């Protein structure tokens, strides 16, 4: 099977005067127009640049039909540059009429030698071409300038997808055959083969069997609603293919609540060389599937299959192209080759698609199967037909329908079709899947089937186009570039790719500790979600952060129940949460001494309640979207504050305490006055006071409330009480040393430093044992320092460094959450070498499987923490009110960092080096940098001067 030609998703053609007047178009021009329009039906975008007057263009181009592919015709005639835009969706204009974006006046033009005029930013704004970029790229052939120059495609540019033709290459006689080839690639349903930019691609060799499940995790594809693990098509025992749906849980045989296993759409595809095919007469392929985590004894059939798998594994390579959101695979097995591409359509959550091509024999099972059930018989084998040169043979589509109903509430229905296309070189399977989930009741399978039917002809290509366009948009909003550190650049992009795809952009989002990428942590929602993931999404995908808050707000009643059951007022959120918001933390496990260990986090790790309120503050403060407060947010803040007010103990001396808790450092349980918990509780009360203010004092809250907003009504007595608590709640701060005592009595513990027993990161509790470590000052993760990270403005000024000095050497970083937080704070403190070391640990945690648990899912909190360390730590980004603060401190080998995000509803782009800082925004923003006065504006440029910056 020869490699098919590369596919181009966007084609840029630069003409001099090759197009003739519309009234007398030649044959070539007409044919060219025809080819362009036929490719637009497959969602290929075109940008034509010509030095002709647009009125001189042939009619076929001036009046182009509406099609899935965009067409922009850019007339660069120096006296009347203009753009014809044929967007992919009908505009208010007649469907066949172009939207003429206008002609520029003479003084807005800059003449050029070759008549390609540089247009004004005003005229080219819709195309996102900036002044100077086009000319620079065309004249100087600067490849780095090309991406921005050709952002004219309605989507932002990903250079490998764009074919640029100019000069002789742009002659119709050469372009037409090329376009015909591109059309054929699509007509023949080939597996798209794209060029890739390695800085956006995670490349994985499948040979190492120990990394099989790790690869499945890191190659997960999600669309926000559903996540699919990246198992290879023919894999058998030892692989863990799985699909998970956001928020759909079940109770398992042990009574634990976990994410439900949805029907899987990626497997049951076996391929072999014709001479080494499996026993086609057999119908017992069920033996190749196993849900037993330890594997099953193999039948003869599956042993044979396993041999094939081993062979293919050794020669299988996959490319996760994060810019496009696609997973591509090339593999060989003897004379057989396989090429596949799959994606979970982020533009249409619930829809997934794949194509698989081989020159060998393809053996298929049903398109859907449940991992928990024996696999049904294989349905049929297909062999390539060499005689069918370009005579495409299509099988009838075969549909699979499956539903899984939760034994709690809701369920998932899925429909999938698969179709075989046979042509000269290979046989191609196209599989499309549709998922529908409902947290209340099992959706009818017909609803999934309907979604599938709506995909229609050219469905794969059109879905892929929408998918890559959506990803392009997201990357334009959230991209990160780090010159001088390609490994970290890729790791940060990986973190963003997974975070942006694991969380939906609407509804409510129950973001489990491992997201939708694996069974680990049963899909339970921890503070990982509120504190580590949400701040990232608030900056890069605010709608997802809001969905996460709705998950909490919609379960406020359960948190209120939880508080009541414990004899308190207000709302107490569970340490681990699933579908209904009740506490689902396991209560025991077997410890390393073989004895049963009580897990007390559900009972005592109460800072989660303040963390949830903090997440709400973080979102509304960062995004400027205060509507969330009216949609239940205010009630949540009031109720969490009310909980703390009822939870505290008051000593005879009037001091206020919170006893019997576990802080973030879980090596020390049942402690009193954990500094972090107390500070967060105080912060929570202060936030409630700030939010509710005097205007909210409308009456006395009672337990018989009927509307959520009623819980935000507070009395003046309650307000007064909250004020008193915040002033008297101890926080363990020692003025002389500037150090917060982590909890009462911490300073009296054995002053053991982690370096005395091991090199961190290390699981200190396993090393020393549960009882022993509790008697030492070795801690699991940032605890006091977590307050510096989350509420830096509320901790004592100047306390960061002394607490870093004190707690850093005591921290084992045995929690995967810890390194990124320390990295962020160390960077803020200017300790860049130390910061970078921990930052790299966090960035590579899943990619290098540093925990040996990535197989069971991504560590979303660490992914979030990594981005936070880059943004808040190395770039020094923070906000106060509507002001954006930036204070970059970059590691030596970083030449330049560029980061995109949203702030207060505005898209912001930062480009920082050691000498210069450039900030641009779509709207005016208030920017503060050290050493320079605050300014408003869209464009800000500063130069380094001493420790601060001066504006230019």
């Amino acid at each position: 099977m020869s490699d098919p030609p590369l596919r181009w998703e966007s084609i840029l053609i630069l003409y001099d005067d090759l197009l003739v007047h519309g009234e007398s178009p030649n044959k070539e021009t007409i044919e060219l127009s025809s080819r362009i329009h036929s490719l637009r039906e497959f969602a290929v975008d075109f940008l034509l640049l010509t030095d002709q007057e647009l009125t001189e263009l042939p009619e076929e181009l001036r009046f182009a039909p509406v099609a899935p592919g965009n067409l922009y015709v850019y007339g660069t005639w120096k006296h009347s540059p203009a753009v014809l835009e044929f967007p992919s969706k009908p505009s208010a204009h007649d469907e066949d009429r172009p939207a003429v974006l206008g002609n520029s006046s003479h003084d807005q033009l800059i003449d050029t030698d070759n008549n390609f005029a540089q247009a004004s930013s005003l005229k080219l704004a819709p195309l996102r071409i900036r002044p100077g970029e086009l000319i620079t790229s065309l004249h100087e052939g600067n490849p780095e300038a090309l991406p921005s120059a050709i952002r004219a495609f309605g989507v932002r540019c990903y250079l490998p997808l764009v074919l640029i033709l100019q000069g002789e290459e742009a002659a119709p006689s050469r372009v037409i055959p090329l376009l015909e080839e591109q059309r054929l690639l699509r007509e023949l349903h080939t597996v798209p083969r794209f060029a890739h930019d390695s800085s956006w691609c995670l490349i994985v060799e499948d040979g190492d069997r120990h990394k099989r499940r790790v690869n499945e995790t890191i190659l997960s594809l999600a669309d926000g609603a559903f996540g699919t693990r990246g198992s290879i098509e023919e894999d058998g025992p030892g692989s863990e293919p799985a699909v998970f749906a956001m928020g759909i849980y079940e109770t398992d045989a042990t009574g634990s609540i976990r994410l439900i296993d949805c029907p899987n759409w990626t497997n049951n595809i076996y391929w072999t060389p014709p001479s080494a095919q499996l026993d086609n007469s057999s119908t017992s392929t069920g033996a190749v599937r196993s849900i037993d985590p330890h594997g099953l004894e193999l039948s003869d059939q599956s042993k044979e299959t396993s041999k094939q798998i081993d062979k293919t594994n050794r020669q299988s390579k996959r490319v996760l192209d994060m810019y496009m959101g696609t997973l591509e695979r090339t593999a060989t097995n003897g004379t057989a080759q396989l090429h596949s591409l799959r994606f979970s359509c982020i533009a249409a959550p619930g829809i997934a698609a794949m194509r698989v091509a081989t020159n060998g024999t393809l053996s298929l099972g049903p398109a859907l199967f449940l991992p928990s059930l024996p696999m049904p018989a294989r349905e049929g084998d297909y062999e390539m037909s060499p005689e069918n040169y370009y005579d495409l043979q299509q099988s009838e589509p075969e549909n699979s329908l499956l539903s899984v109903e939760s034994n709690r509430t809701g369920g998932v229905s899925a429909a999938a079709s698969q179709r075989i296309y046979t042509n000269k070189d290979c046989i191609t399977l196209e599989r499309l899947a549709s998922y529908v989930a409902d947290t209340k009741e099992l959706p009818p399978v017909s609803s999934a089937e309907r979604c599938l039917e709506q995909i229609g002809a050219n469905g794969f290509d059109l879905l892929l186009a929408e998918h890559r366009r959506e990803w392009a948009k997201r990357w334009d909003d959230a991209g990160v570039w780090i010159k001088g550190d390609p490994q970290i650049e890729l790791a940060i992009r990986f973190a963003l790719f997974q975070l942006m795809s694991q969380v939906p952009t609407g509804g409510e989002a129950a973001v489990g500790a491992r997201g939708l990428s694996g069974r680990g942590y049963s899909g339970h929602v921890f503070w990982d979600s509120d504190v580590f993931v949400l701040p990232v999404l608030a900056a890069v995908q605010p709608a997802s952060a809001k969905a996460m808050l709705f998950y909490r707000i919609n379960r406020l009643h359960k948190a209120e129940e939880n508080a009541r059951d414990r004899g308190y007022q207000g709302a107490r959120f569970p340490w681990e949460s699933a579908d209904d918001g009740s506490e689902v933390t396991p209560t025991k496990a077997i410890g390393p001494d073989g004895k049963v260990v009580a897990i007390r986090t559900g009972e005592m790790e109460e800072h989660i309640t303040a963390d949830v309120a903090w997440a709400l503050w973080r979102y509304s403060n960062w995004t400027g979207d205060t509507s969330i407060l009216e949609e239940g947010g205010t009630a949540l803040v009031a109720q969490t504050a009310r909980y703390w007010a009822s939870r505290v103990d008051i000593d005879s001396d009037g001091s206020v305490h919170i006893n019997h808790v576990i802080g973030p450092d879980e090596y020390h349980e049942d402690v009193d006055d954990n500094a972090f918990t107390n500070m967060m509780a105080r912060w929570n009360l202060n936030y409630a006071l700030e939010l509710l203010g005097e205007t909210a004092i409308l009456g006395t809250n009672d337990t018989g409330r009927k509307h959520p907003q009623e819980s935000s009504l507070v009395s003046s007595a309650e307000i007064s009480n909250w004020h008193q608590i915040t002033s008297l709640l101890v926080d363990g701060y020692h003025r002389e040393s500037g150090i917060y005592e982590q909890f009462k009595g911490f300073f009296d513990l054995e002053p053991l430093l982690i370096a005395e027993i091991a090199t961190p990161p290390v699981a200190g509790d396993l090393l020393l044992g549960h009882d022993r470590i509790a008697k030492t000052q070795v801690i699991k993760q940032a605890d006091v320092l977590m307050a510096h990270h989350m509420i830096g403005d509320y901790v004592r000024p100047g306390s960061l460094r002394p607490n870093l000095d004190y707690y850093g050497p005591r921290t084992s970083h045995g929690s995967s959450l810890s390194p990124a937080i320390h990295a962020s704070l160390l960077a803020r403190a200017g300790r860049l070498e130390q910061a970078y070391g921990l930052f790299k640990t966090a960035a590579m945690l899943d990619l290098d499987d540093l925990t040996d648990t990535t197989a069971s899912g991504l560590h979303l909190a660490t992914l979030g923490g990594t981005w936070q360390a880059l943004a808040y730590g190395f770039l020094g980004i923070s906000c106060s009110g509507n002001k954006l603060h930036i204070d970059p401190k970059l590691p030596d080998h970083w030449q330049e960092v560029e980061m995109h995000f949203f702030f207060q509803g505005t898209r912001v782009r930062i480009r920082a080096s050691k000498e210069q800082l450039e900030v641009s925004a779509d709207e005016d923003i208030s920017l503060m940098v050290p050493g320079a006065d605050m300014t408003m504006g869209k464009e800000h440029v500063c130069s380094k001067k001493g420790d601060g910056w001066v504006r230019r």
Partner: protein
Amino acid sequence: MGQKMSEKESSTVQREQERLLLAAIDGSAATTPVLLAASKLAPLLDATVQALNISPTSETEKALSTDSLPDAASSSRSESAAAIASSLHISLRNVEGDVADELSTAIGDPSVVAAVVGARRLESHRYQLGHITQELLAHATKPILVVWPQWTPSSDATWQKVLCPLDGNESTARSIRTTMTTIASRGAKIVAVHVFEPDTVPRFWDQHGHTQESWGREFLYRNCSVPGTTLQILAGPPGEKIVEAANGYQADMIVMCWAGSTEGGRAPVVTEVLYRTRIPVLLIPRIEDNSLSS
């Protein structure tokens, strides 16, 4: 006539089909435990027990072997061995010669899947297995079950509980895979044990219950992908913890992988377990990575 199988060929085929568990006896105190252990292990390996009694020919060996049965004459040990084997309905083959050589040759036969040997622990010699056993183990290419004279068998017809310590080394996983798969397929319940030591403690260990499940699941996938196996994670001195776990589990047998030598402080965990336990220990020769790749 050409299609008729010769006797020799027939014998070869028959031998290839046989799976023998060789029980090495000498009429010493270990004879009964060895044969009993062999009869309990054989069903797990899908094998038939064959006792092999080797009468030593060299004076040195004779002298060395008398310590286990001090009151027995050399000739009467063979008679004793035959009587015990007969009482257990185990076929016996008698051989004369150098014990270690003969045993190695017998074990090397393709039909033999494993062997059972007796150890003699001298309380004054912590690492003493008996020189023949040690020599055998040093060159073994097949699993060898070491049985103590003091071992008291349970009344179960076959062994049900097998403890398998795993060090997380890939060659260990590969070495034990076939044996453990066979044992599991015969219905034995396998508990794998991994003991964290200071230099092997994981770097990260988040919420204990969840992490243990995730880590353990992956550990089993990589190291003992045998159906039904459960994992016990422990911390501390490995030899001590393994024996504690075996006692707590009331294991019938401990299965360990080893490289074949205790000299120079090698195989400290195996050595420690052999010293501390009276539970039979099945030692599976380690297949090193370089031999795997070849």
